[in-house]
């Protein structure tokens, strides 16, 4: 190091929060190209703009996905980052690792790349930063030898991810890690070989707290839920009643006002419960999701590009994913295939499924993929009389 003066980045080595600059420096102490990463970043801080070039195809043979090209716009000044590409690597569901595997990944990252990772990228991939096209194949094969594969990029099924689920959470209403692994492997071709108009994301959360943020960013969001009664332990309720005001912090916060706490007895009118999780999360020793567990599917969430951000709407209020697990998730994979066929038939370039179904009409879309209309798909029914009745179409035909 010392090759580039980095006064602005040096400032970010100070302070209590762990410093990314120190991490880059630590990698740069072993990797010459990463010295130039520091140099280029300092120049960005001076110039006030990014210095990465737009575009450039990079990849491994047989895959159209998994490697994101990064070429420097100023390679004369920083030759080490002329090529400094990213590999997206499918992570372990639940993000569990062993020390042995982490060391092997670190060795690969040192040998073929810049000695630096993102643990993890926003979508949930392990990201290895800083290799050239010439090194991509060896990097890929070294990963494959220890059981790791590349993830999705471009107009592909992006690497699905899961919350920790039943591995370490009593609220998980289905086995998120199992579903994530099986379903990703079933659709592995769509991960590696982009077949779509644009990206497609699937994420698995075990309960409506949604720790993977699937409802805000996955085209198809799988969120665990139960449909019978919340289990209540009155003795534990009594213990909580000694530590805080249950009326104020639980009963009054219930969005459907279906809880009462009178004369020491805690009751829930489950018929009106919307499964928001507040009471359970506030008194985890006393309350638990019921026994009839499954999942809800929300569709169409996405970030702003192109036509503005969307949250996922409730496509299917209950689906028995636990039974489907026994059937190899065949209901789920069939449904996804129907959604993709619909997208294929009606979509446009760079149009996400959420944008398409809005353009096409949610009701029409549900009819095409074979899901019955139900009132939970809307906040409230239509308020205008501009109804396009089917019989009108039939007459003209």
């Amino acid at each position, binding site marked *: 190091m010392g090759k580039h003066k980095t006064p602005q980045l040096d400032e970010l080595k100070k302070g209590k929060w762990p410093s*990314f600059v120190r991490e880059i420096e630590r*990698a740069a102490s072993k990797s010459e190209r990463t010295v130039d990463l520091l140099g280029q970043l300092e120049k960005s801080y001076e110039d006030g*703009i990014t210095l990465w070039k737009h575009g450039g195809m990079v990849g491994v043979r047989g895959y159209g996905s998994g490697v994101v090209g990064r070429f420097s716009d100023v390679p004369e000044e920083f030759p080490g980052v002329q090529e400094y590409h990213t590999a997206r690597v499918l992570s372990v569901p639940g993000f569990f690792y062993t020390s042995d595997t982490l060391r092997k990944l*670190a060795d690969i990252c040192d040998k073929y790349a810049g*000695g630096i990772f993102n*643990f993890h990228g*926003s979508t*949930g991939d392990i990201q290895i930063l800083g290799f050239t096209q010439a090194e991509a194949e060896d990097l890929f094969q070294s990963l494959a030898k220890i059981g790791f594969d590349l993830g999705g990029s471009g107009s592909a099924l992006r690497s699905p991810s899961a919350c920790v689920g039943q591995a370490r959470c*009593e609220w998980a209403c289905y086995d998120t890690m199992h579903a994530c*692994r099986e379903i990703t492997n079933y659709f592995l071709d769509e991960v590696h070989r982009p077949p779509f108009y644009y990206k497609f994301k699937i994420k698995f959360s075990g309960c409506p707290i949604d720790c993977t943020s699937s409802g805000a960013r996955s085209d198809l969001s799988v969120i665990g839920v139960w449909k019978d009664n919340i289990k209540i332990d009155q003795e534990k309720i009594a213990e909580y009643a000694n530590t805080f005001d249950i009326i104020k912090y639980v009963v009054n916060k219930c969005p459907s006002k279906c809880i009462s706490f009178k004369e020491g007895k805690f009751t829930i009118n489950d018929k009106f419960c919307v499964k928001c999780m507040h009471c359970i999360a506030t008194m985890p020793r006393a309350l638990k999701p019921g026994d009839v567990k499954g999942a809800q599917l929300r569709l169409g969430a996405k970030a702003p590009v192109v036509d503005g951000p969307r949250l996922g709407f409730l496509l299917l209020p209950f689906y028995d994913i636990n039974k489907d697990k026994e059937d190899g998730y065949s209901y789920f994979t069939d449904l996804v295939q129907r959604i993709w066929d619909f997208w294929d038939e009606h979509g446009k370039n760079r149009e996400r499924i959420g944008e398409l179904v809005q353009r096409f009409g949610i009701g029409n879309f549900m009819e095409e993929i074979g899901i019955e209309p139900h009132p939970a798909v809307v906040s409230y029914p239509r308020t205008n009389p501009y109804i396009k009745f089917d019989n009108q179409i039939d007459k003209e035909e």
Partner: protein
Amino acid sequence: MGQEDKRITDVGVPNYEDYLPPIIKDNYGKWLYHEVIKPGVLLHVAESGDKLYSVRVGSPRLLSTDTIRDFANLAEKYCGGFLRFTTRNNIEFLLTDENNIDLLTKEINEMGFPVGGIDNTIGNVIHTQGWLHCHTSASDASGVVKAIMDELYDYFVNPLLPAKIRMAFACCINMCGSVATSDIALVAVHRKLPEINDEKLRNLCEIPTVVASCPVHAIRVVKRDDKTSVEIDKKLCFYCGNCYTVCPAMPLSDKNYDGLAIFVGGKISNTRTKPTFAKLAVPFLHNNPPRWPEVVDAVKTIVKAYKNGAQKGERVGEWIDRIGWPRFFEITGFEFTKYHIDDFRLSEATLNYSNHSTL
């Protein structure tokens, strides 16, 4: 390597069973309850009576191989060689011996990493690549987050807030990650028209794709010097960069025009209220590296106002819903401008069709 018959492809997702500590394998799907036993430490109790202690560590996400090796060593010393990461990029050490919590925490702190991020804290900040490694970024991501968390460090290690704050940073409106549903969402924005390079456009871009990329139909085909190019209607363009994403001949980064917007009150969980996007609080602050003091101040203003005003258990958005947006702008001192009134798709639904108003 290189021999055709030995080439391995399509191995798929690793089998997580190879990576689970014994206590998790033994109690998979059989957990009874969990609670926070001290800042940064969760206790999970299984039906079997087994107890698992998870020590959560804040992370800048970008980690060197040697730091990963240090974490691997700690996992071997204290956790039988197992660890995990969270969906917010924390590292979590999974302990079965309660006595090791303080020893491990001490070693983590000596490495320069904090333990915390659980309960009513500012959790680990999700962020994107920024200038460090992205070609469309309008700001750096790691730098802004570092500057903010240096100042708000205590809020990560101790539960000082009425409820949790989820903060996230996206370095352009592409918004990699779940930025838009955060309690405090920082989004880097461009504000300059793309500069069209005719020569590059003809060589590198599909013109119909460029025209179609614009969400407000601001791009039209024109002839310049007898050759086909495009022009942008500057009255319509809002600098989203969609055209640049499909065509490198239309860059829009500019030191004096790029900066950040701040949105507040988003929420992804279904607890109590429905998930919702964050809403605009501050339309624009200039990039001011290396410490972005104006951005740090604005975030501190929001955190302070929330901490002072919210009732126990209220998230930022719930607090603002209760007091109303006029009071929010009054308390924070942020100016309410025409930019705060939505004019994009669905904007009609955002107006106040009533007489309800704090006066």
